[in-house]
């Protein structure tokens, strides 16, 4: 029997067609992957199935019965539950309160807290979820928060579960645990739709895959009949090479060295705890690790956005520890920030104005107190041309550009300042394959020009492809260095999870 069947689903938003006649067929009791790039329309399709959006065209059958899902309530009644990627949890509420919200058990009009807690405990025990019903969300780990999300759907009697990129926030060990939970769920008769763009995970746990690309339905295949490269080309629309063309690195003198660095995170806890690192001119050092192991704090400390309370950062032989961001920028640090909307651009400024974000008060862009717009615009036009930023003109607000072009703009600005040391944090997050390739080429080009580059990425693949050396960060320390040419996934995985590996790669 088909648990879910969506036929010819079309959904338009002002300016775009998010889903264009998409089909999805999921059999009862299978783990079905929904595969597509960022922006391919996966989320839209699932929001339709979950009742948050109404399709403009198309039909939905749940357990072979035609239905109209007009709201999350209806989806709930049909036994559809969603485990959101960005957890939909109310922080100051307890686990139980989050789970019962919207369908609270009552007695005389009051919430029956005790009954609710008992039920939550029972479901948790049955599927081996190990959550504490009385804990507050803000006090529990990311892994447990995800299990609360799963519990929310089970509490409502869901038997079709949508998992939206569930592994993005998890450590390898937690991913293993999640997979066990998913297998348990299927054993108990549940059906799972697994949204992802990670091919390895599909090959490992899924039964079948539906691929969508740019809002269009590409195909449905059984995992047994396919392999990673065929899935990749269906996802992207052409053959994809898994390697980046590059010559071996020619590392020279040390540009950046970090000694015993300690940095607190926003909650005042040490996130970087005695980290050492050295980066040479002409090499890319990849920083691999699970999100939240001190990567962001490390980068913010190097760039002066956070202060280090111990240790030393030396650039070209001079200490830059705890200098102001401006001073560090002037000494030759370029920074492609992790979150381009938050840090990288002033979205309401024109792309032209954004090109002088650090240099607006220097000659020739300013004379004394006044801005020299002709010079600013001339400079912006040159960068836009050189770096192929697609924009109607330099006066277009940065907000109106596509993610790839916004990122190209940032890279243009940072690279053009000709820094000795360039930090690229998650430089391709959320971009499509074409843009990713272009950005990878730029980074290699900068390396070959003799820049020292630190590449931080949560995508292990990316680090692997680009880096000349990989440093694995775990709990604020470099857990080990590996050589991308010789290392294995097991080795990196072990380091990312805090295991010990003996090899130290020196150059």
């Amino acid at each position, binding site marked *: 029997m088909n648990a879910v069947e969506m036929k010819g689903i079309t959904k338009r938003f*002002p300016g775009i067609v998010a889903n264009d006649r998409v089909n999805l067929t999921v059999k009862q009791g299978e783990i079905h992957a929904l595969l597509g790039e960022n922006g391919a329309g996966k989320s839209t399709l699932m929001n339709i199935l979950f009742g948050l959006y109404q399709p403009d065209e198309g039909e939905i059958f749940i357990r072979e019965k035609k239905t109209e899902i007009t709201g999350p309530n209806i989806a709930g009644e049909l036994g559809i539950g969603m485990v959101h990627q960005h957890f939909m949890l109310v922080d100051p509420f307890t686990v139980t309160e989050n789970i019962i919200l919207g369908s609270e058990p009552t007695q005389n009009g009051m919430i029956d807290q005790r009954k609710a807690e008992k039920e939550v405990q029972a479901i948790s025990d049955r599927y081996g979820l190990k959550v504490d019903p009385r804990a507050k969300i803000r006090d529990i780990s990311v892994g447990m928060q995800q299990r609360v999300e799963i519990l929310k759907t089970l509490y409502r009697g869901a038997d079709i579960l949508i998992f939206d990129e569930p592994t993005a926030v998890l450590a390898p060990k937690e991913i293993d645990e999640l997979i066990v939970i998913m297998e348990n769920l299927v054993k108990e008769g549940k059906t799972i739709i697994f949204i992802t763009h990670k091919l390895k995970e599909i090959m490992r746990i899924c039964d079948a895959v539906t691929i969508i690309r740019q809002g269009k339905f590409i195909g449905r295949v059984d995992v047994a009949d396919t392999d990673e490269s065929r899935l990749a080309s269906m996802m992207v629309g052409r053959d994809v090479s898994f390697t980046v063309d590059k010559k071996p690195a020619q590392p020279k003198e040390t540009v950046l060295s970090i000694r015993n660095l300690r940095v607190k995170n926003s909650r005042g806890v040490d996130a970087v705890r005695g980290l050492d690192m050295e980066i040479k001119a002409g090499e890319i050092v990849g920083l691999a690790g699970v999100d939240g192991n001190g990567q962001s704090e490390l980068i913010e400390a190097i760039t002066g956005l956070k202060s280090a309370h111990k240790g030393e950062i030396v650039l070209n032989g001079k200490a830059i520890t705890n200098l102001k961001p401006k001073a560090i920028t002037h000494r030759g640090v370029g920074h492609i920030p992790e979150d381009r909307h938050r840090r990288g651009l002033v979205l309401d400024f024109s792309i032209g104005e954004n090109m002088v974000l650090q240099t607006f008060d220097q000659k020739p862009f300013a004379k004394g107190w006044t801005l020299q717009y002709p010079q600013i615009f001339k400079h912006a036009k040159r960068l836009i041309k050189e770096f192929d930023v697609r924009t109607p003109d330099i006066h277009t607000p940065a907000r109106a550009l596509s993610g790839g072009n916004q990122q190209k703009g940032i890279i243009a600005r940072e690279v053009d300042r000709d820094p000795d040391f360039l930090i690229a944090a998650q430089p391709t997050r959320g971009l499509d394959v074409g843009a990713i390739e272009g950005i990878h080429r730029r980074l290699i080009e900068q390396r070959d020009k003799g820049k020292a580059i630190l590449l931080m990425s949560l995508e292990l693949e990316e680090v692997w492809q680009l880096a000349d050396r990989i440093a694995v960060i775990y709990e604020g320390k470099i857990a080990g260095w590996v050589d991308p040419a010789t290392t294995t996934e097991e080795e990196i995985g072990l380091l990312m999870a805090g295991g010990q590996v003996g090899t130290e790669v020196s150059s």
Partner: protein
Amino acid sequence: MQVLSKINKQSSIFTSLVSVFLGLLVGGVMMILAGYNPIQAYIALFQSAFLQPFDIGETIRTITPLILTGLAVGLAFRTGLFNIGVEGQFIIGQLAAVIVALKLDLPPVIHAIVAVIAGALGGALWAFLPGYLKAKRGVHEVITTIMLNFIALYLSNLTVREWLTDGADKTKEIPESASLHWNMLSQLFDSSRVHFGIFIAIVAAFFMYYLLWKTTTGYQLRAVGYNPHASEYAGMNVSRNIVLSMMISGVFAGLAGASELLGTAGYQAIQASYTGIGFDGIAVSLLGGNSPLGIVLSASLFGILTYGGSNMEYVAAVPREVIRVVFAAIIFFVAANIVRWVAQRRKKKVIDKGGEGK
């Protein structure tokens, strides 16, 4: 940038005009409900604002503080801050000006200049505190400025009663030397109370334009207003810019207070509640699209409505408070951006229909 601001202006001028029209319509409905003739009333209103040279002068006098409080709100908005405390900064501006006017003995002109500067600094000081608390402790400026409005009111009353007078409820008149009154200008408008403050207001509008769009300081203020995180990343001092922005806004508000006191009232009285000129600044700035030119234009409109409204009460017997209702309606329509909303609705409908057609 020119292209962008052009688009911005076009849509916001249209929005503003529609909102003014709808606002006057709401006022008209109010009048009909209470049995007045709105057409007669509005004619009386607009006529009386321009009837005699004297009326024109008085209208300009009414417009003067509205431009300045509008600029105060607008500059803060442009830099990402909501200065609801213009009212309090206005009061402190009045207070500082009256203190200098009464307590210092200076030659003419210089006395007035010092008093105006004192007012500006008073406003800046009163705006410094919310700016500082926002920058350093993350306290939202809306709440702190509301609280500081009341503190300013009581502080002014206390100062007038205990220090500037001997328990009286208003100070004595300021000396001629500190006055912004300018005979030539006043006589031009048939001895109306129009005063030098209007020039201060116009210069302030030009200053805001130049500062925000032509200087490196303005670039930083706008960048911090739009995105403090990116500004910090780019090496700007976010806290300093927030404080600076509030203080410049406070300077405008303080100037409004000083010019009202030194030009129009001539004394400071104990006040039971606000003048409302600071809150009017919010309406002025919103309607003017937070741009200096727009603010001058919308202040003119609000000034005409306010002055004409009080005459309307005498001529057509329609209570002038109906103008407050018109203001309120205009704020609602501008804030809700009715025009954009209708446009989006229609766009959505077209798409939906396209869907059904297939």
